[in-house]
């Protein structure tokens, strides 16, 4: 069955860290550039994320995501460079298009901020198995029922995608037009989606009964199948990141 998660199995110290420390890191990479909104700070944070991605040996897998983001960022650079209110200093003239310094600087800021945040999320996403993440959240007080809900999505989606291709073939065999002009394609949407939705809703009934029979609603302490991955580094890392955020805040207040 097709794996839908972005997780990449490698051997690195980033992989060995617990998911909660990575969540702390995301919080850190969002908060520090918000508290100290200068280009150099955001640049440092972005570089830190990219270095960590390289150390985790997942940079290659991160590239396609970054590329997708950069396509949007290019339009940001163009639009902000040309039209941002407050544009005064002319920076570059290409034919009739005039790029202004203020807009370009702003676009640079947006680019760095997006790189920083996407990088931080990618560290979590590429180096953590979704089930590990959910399990460590459940250990820290997330309801196990919600935990089940999140994990089961990873089973349901591949199931539904395979139903979907079956239904697509079946409806085409009955003569449903799935290509042509926009109206034809819109009309094809409901006969394709309807059976998948109905089938999966009927399935939820069986799933619910199966779960209840197995004590899904039982009270009492839940135990875990796997032992928790702990690292000696996790406490110092979490404290260190919090300390930097607090220091950044104090710095902002003092200057």
């Amino acid at each position, binding site marked *: 069955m097709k794996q839908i998660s972005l997780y990449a199995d490698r051997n690195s110290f980033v992989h060995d860290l617990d998911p909660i420390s990575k969540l702390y890191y995301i919080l850190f990479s969002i908060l520090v550039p918000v508290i100290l909104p200068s280009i150099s700070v955001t640049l440092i944070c972005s570089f830190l994320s990219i270095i960590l991605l390289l150390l985790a040996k997942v940079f290659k897998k991160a590239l396609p995501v970054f590329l997708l983001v950069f396509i949007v960022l290019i339009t940001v650079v163009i639009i902000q460079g040309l039209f941002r209110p407050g544009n005064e200093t002319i920076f570059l003239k290409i034919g009739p298009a005039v790029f202004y310094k203020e807009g370009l600087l702003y676009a640079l800021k947006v680019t760095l901020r997006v790189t920083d945040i996407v990088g931080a999320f990618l560290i979590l996403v590429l180096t953590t198995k979704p089930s590990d993440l959910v399990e460590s959240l459940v250990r820290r007080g997330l309801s196990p029922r919600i935990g089940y809900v999140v994990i089961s999505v990873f089973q349901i989606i591949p199931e539904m995608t395979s139903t979907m291709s079956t239904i697509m073939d079946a409806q085409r065999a009955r003569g449903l037009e799935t290509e042509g002009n926009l109206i034809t394609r819109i009309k094809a*949407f409901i006969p394709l989606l*309807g059976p998948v939705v109905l089938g999966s809703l009927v399935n939820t009934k069986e799933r619910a009964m199966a*779960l209840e029979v197995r004590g899904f609603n039982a009270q009492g302490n839940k135990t875990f199948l796997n032992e928790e991955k702990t690292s000696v580094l996790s406490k110092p890392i979490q404290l260190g990141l919090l300390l930097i955020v607090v220091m950044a805040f104090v710095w902002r207040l003092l200057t």
Partner: protein
Amino acid sequence: MQKQSMWSLKFSTAALVLIPTAVGINYIGKLFAGLLKLPLWLDSIGTVLASILAGPIIGALAGAVNNVIYGLTVDPISFVYGITSVAIGLAVGILCYKGWLSSWSKAALAGLIVGLVATIVSTPINIGFWGGQTGNVWGDALYAIVLAKTDSVWLASFLDEIVVDVPDKLLVVLISFAIYRGLPGSVSQMYNNSNKFESLD
């Protein structure tokens, strides 16, 4: 039939199991929209259906789980837009509870309201994150024009989001309503949280 309060936090197992299915439906909706090369996202049908069937809280949860899963599997940026999904789930659930989803014309109006809610929630996120753009070609072209004419980032960003979001959410609500009307009673009654038992002896 007396309905239980729509804000009840006591979920039945069926309602909880509806959440992963809703996320799956969102995923499939987006896939089909991509396969048929439709110019809209259509990626919140599951969230809307979950809200109609099981109320605003389940809808909001489905929205949140949806964006977390998307963030983990496809596109980390969707974590940031989780708030919009939650808002869509809540809006549909409340409108449905108030009886707005009872006829086609009312459903269309509800779709417009949901689109507006999504726009209002997304605009600040767009401004904070992208400097106001959405990443949709048509919306961003409008953004550039309005920005050049009026000098207001907020107006430009709001219009950018509204031209993309309102048609999308309108269609999503109408499609979900069509599917909901087609559901057999045994399915649509299942998630009703009223927990009333009748005994025959």
